[in-house]
């Protein structure tokens, strides 16, 4: 019988709730209270997440966020700023010691991204993992990913673009040099692509989630069984939200 992992479909939440859930699941898994878990989710309102080491004010135009009612949150993972709107976001939490997870961090990125590549294939999209942390289709980025390891447990989360609005994204993110803003936007438009754009049709969150579920099941030869957050995970989520991801101190710390 195939190993069973838990699948969480937590719907659409705020940035701080989403990041708190990932951390709650990480803690619960590190204490051996839940099986390896894959989660699919979205963001409401749309939100910018920044990498653990990024400077909030340097990367994000906070006035624009307010104007457009866009939320922002600092992640516990490194990497860059992401505008989460029309996408499927996933996270996977699994013990570092699991035989399917390479000890080497770069190799484990490749392995987990392999699940997404397989998922995209189910949608009819050819793609490949490009180190450090991207998945590209036709040379253009369709997914960005970030991993942390805490308490001997791996958390990797990432985004799969369903549709993308580069102009809106850049109205919310700051650019290093205003003089080259237009060129930068033009460059990024050439470098990113979304599922909708590749397939030339609109596609719903559920259809993408179903494909990604298959991708994870195939890559890791497991069965994903739909479950819910435990009461303890829910309590931890509230705790992390009020003590960390929802606080000024955390989000503005750099």
């Amino acid at each position, binding site marked *: 019988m195939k190993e069973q992992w838990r699948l969480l479909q937590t719907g659409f939440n705020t940035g701080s709730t989403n990041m708190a859930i990932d951390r709650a699941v990480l803690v619960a898994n590190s204490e051996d209270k839940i099986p390896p878990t894959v989660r699919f989710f979205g963001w409401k309102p749309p939100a910018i997440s920044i990498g653990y080491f990024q400077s909030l004010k340097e990367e994000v135009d906070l006035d624009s966020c307010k104007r457009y009612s866009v939320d922002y949150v600092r992640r516990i993972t490194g990497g860059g700023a992401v505008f989460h709107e029309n996408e499927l976001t996933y996270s996977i939490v699994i013990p570092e010691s699991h035989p399917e997870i390479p000890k080497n961090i770069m190799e484990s990125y490749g392995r987990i991204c392999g699940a997404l590549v397989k998922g995209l294939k189910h949608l009819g999209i050819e793609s490949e993992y490009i180190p*450090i942390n991207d998945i590209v289709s036709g040379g253009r980025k369709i997914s960005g990913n970030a991993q942390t390891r805490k308490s001997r447990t791996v958390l990797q989360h990432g985004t799969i673009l369903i549709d993308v609005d580069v102009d809106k994204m850049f109205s919310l993110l700051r650019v290093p040099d205003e003089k080259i803003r237009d060129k930068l936007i033009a460059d990024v438009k050439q470098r990113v692509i979304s599922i909708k754009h590749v397939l030339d049709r609109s596609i719903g969150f559920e259809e993408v989630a179903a494909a990604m579920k298959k991708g994870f099941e195939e890559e890791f030869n497991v069965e994903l069984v739909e479950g819910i957050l435990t009461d303890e995970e829910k309590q931890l989520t509230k705790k992390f939200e009020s003590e960390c991801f929802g606080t000024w101190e955390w989000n503005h710390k750099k």
Partner: protein
Amino acid sequence: MQAKSVYKVPNGKLLKVFLNYDEKDNLIKSVSITGDFFAYPEETIEIMENKLKNTLLEREELLEKIQSIIKEYNIEFIGLNAEGLTDGILMCKT
């Protein structure tokens, strides 16, 4: 003196350093290491920032100090390395 640098690490990520330094003694008063790189465990970057206080802004000494902190705290960088971090910090001065 407050200064900032933006540096694309060769084969790596975009490093942004905010530096406060003493011009007379050429010493780091405080440094904030930011960017879209990865470092494991993440919290060691704060240790790095603290330990770099009062370090001389001279390439060899700074690089050696950064390498020793990486070794002591078992820091694994992805998209950044000791040389890149040293160059990013020193670039604040130019």
